[in-house]
């Protein structure tokens, strides 16, 4: 394949699926010692990630998604305030049994939707504008481009989810104060684990939508499919015959986060799966979607 062992290992190590050409770009001979995995010049993984980061930063849709997350963070604050008011109005006898969704609940509902939109648009917007051809001209190694895109989208969405849910949860705790509402007074470690998994599931859903977008190459189809998985399938699964309604509902991506680490203090039914099984399923879903997307992306003409 090549007479330069560094070059060959660099390509394979970066997960290159597409054709790795052996001609050094922009006239600079490949220097394994200086470049390595984080290559310099055109074609490096670092540059691909930087380019994708620049793209995701500079489009309006990212701002819209982040604005939506911000709006739902505000809703978390409103919800906590409402729970505090509601609690004060409750007679003492009913406080023991009262249930209230935790502060981050509005975000937990909306983050999967935001993740689907951001993950889908990362690739499908380039197909609708034709930008994908310029991207592939600049970065012909399709596997690297694919992973850079998915990685940047998932990292951004995961980080946003972590920051927003942490802010929502802290604001909720501050607003509720010392009122003993169970869902607002989980142990700090439990809350941290719950929020961490909420963020990781959001990142995983971003990757699933991203892989689906690579297969479908259509914004409308990808987002609609994502919404169907998040909203229509759970309702359908609930109508299935008895052991299967619970099983299938539990296995849907939207229900996994709470089965891995549910909100502390909540007594609701989160599903039938144990945390390790749910984690495995989440990883498997992500791997299948990414694999199918990478295969379609590498094999099809843009």
């Amino acid at each position, binding site marked *: 394949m090549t007479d330069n062992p560094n070059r060959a290992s660099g390509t394979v190590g970066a997960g290159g699926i597409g054709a790795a050409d052996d001609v050094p770009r922009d006239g600079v001979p490949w220097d394994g010692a200086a470049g390595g995995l984080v290559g310099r010049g055109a074609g490096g993984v670092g540059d691909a990630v930087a380019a994708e980061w620049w793209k995701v930063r500079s489009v309006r849709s990212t701002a819209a998604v982040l604005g939506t997350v911000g709006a739902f963070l505000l809703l978390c604050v409103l919800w906590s305030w409402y729970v505090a008011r509601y609690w004060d109005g409750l007679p003492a006898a009913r406080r023991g049994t009262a249930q209230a969704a935790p502060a981050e609940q509005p975000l937990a509902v909306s983050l999967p939707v935001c993740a689907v939109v951001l993950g*889908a648009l990362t690739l499908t917007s380039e197909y609708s504008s034709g930008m994908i051809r310029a991207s592939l001209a600049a970065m012909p190694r399709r596997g690297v481009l694919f992973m850079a895109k998915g990685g940047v989208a998932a990292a951004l969405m995961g980080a946003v989810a972590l920051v927003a849910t942490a802010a929502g949860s802290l604001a909720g705790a501050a607003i509720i104060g010392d009122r003993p509402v169970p869902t607002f007074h989980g142990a700090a470690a439990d809350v941290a684990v719950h929020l961490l998994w909420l963020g990781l599931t959001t990142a995983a859903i971003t990757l699933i939508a991203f892989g689906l977008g690579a297969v479908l190459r259509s914004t409308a189809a990808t987002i609609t499919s994502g919404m169907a998985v998040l909203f*229509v399938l759970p309702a359908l699964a609930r109508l299935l015959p008895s052991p299967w309604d619970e099983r299938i509902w539990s296995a849907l991506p939207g229900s996994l986060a709470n089965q891995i680490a549910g909100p502390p203090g909540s007594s609701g039914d989160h599903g039938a799966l144990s945390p390790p099984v749910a984690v495995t399923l989440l990883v498997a879903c992500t791997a299948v979607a990414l694999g199918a997307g990478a295969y379609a992306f590498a094999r099809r003409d843009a």
Partner: protein
Amino acid sequence: MGGALAAEWWKLRSVRSTYAVLAVTAAFTGFVVLLAFQMAHVWDGLAAERRDDLLLRPLQELGGWAASLCLAVLGVVSVTSEYRTGMIRTSLVAVPGRRRLLLAKAAVVGAVALAAGEAVTVGSFLGTRLVVGGRPFPDQQAPIAHDLPGFVLAGTVVPVFALLGLSLGVLLRSAAGAIVSVVFVWHVLPLLVHHLPEPWSERAGSVLPGGLPTQMAGLSAENSVYGDLLSPGAAAAVLAAYALIPLGFAAFVLTRRDA
């Protein structure tokens, strides 16, 4: 106007997404009927006193609920795909009267959505009735002719969602933005409204589009996230407003913006 209508009909007929949407809608209706077999099976296995709790109506209403989303997506992509490909410029050269173009699009999409919506809601009702046969489900005692008008009315929410999607497509000119906004109205907003404090959850739930057909039929909104405070006439007026007011905004914006 005839030419504009014919052109829009031709466009809708000749793109793949129309068939994808209609196929998903039909498949969903088929799935609802399949689930009715399962319900009939459960009914046969239940003790007599527990049969009073087994309702068929939630299943029957599922078809129209899913069709609303599918046809709303059709309404969205009927506009945004033209903006994405640049076809909108050709369309506007061919039909320079922008209101006329929008009206033709709305008429064609609305008619297709109405036909699909009625087919799905009436089909789910008659199909599930046929499947359960003579089993006296507690909410299926009335003769078919008595319940049918309610399902015909339920079908009218489908074109309203389709026109809402079309208007949002014109306003936002982005498939992603418009589809997410439609999903917000279709699913997220009812859930949020349901969690409002007491008198307001019912008040706001009464004016959401998904809850209007039951109020038009004069039925109660028991077991649903919606309210039932409106009279049938008022509910019909609100439902029409959901289609016409966004369409008015869309016409206003379309005549003033560059394509």
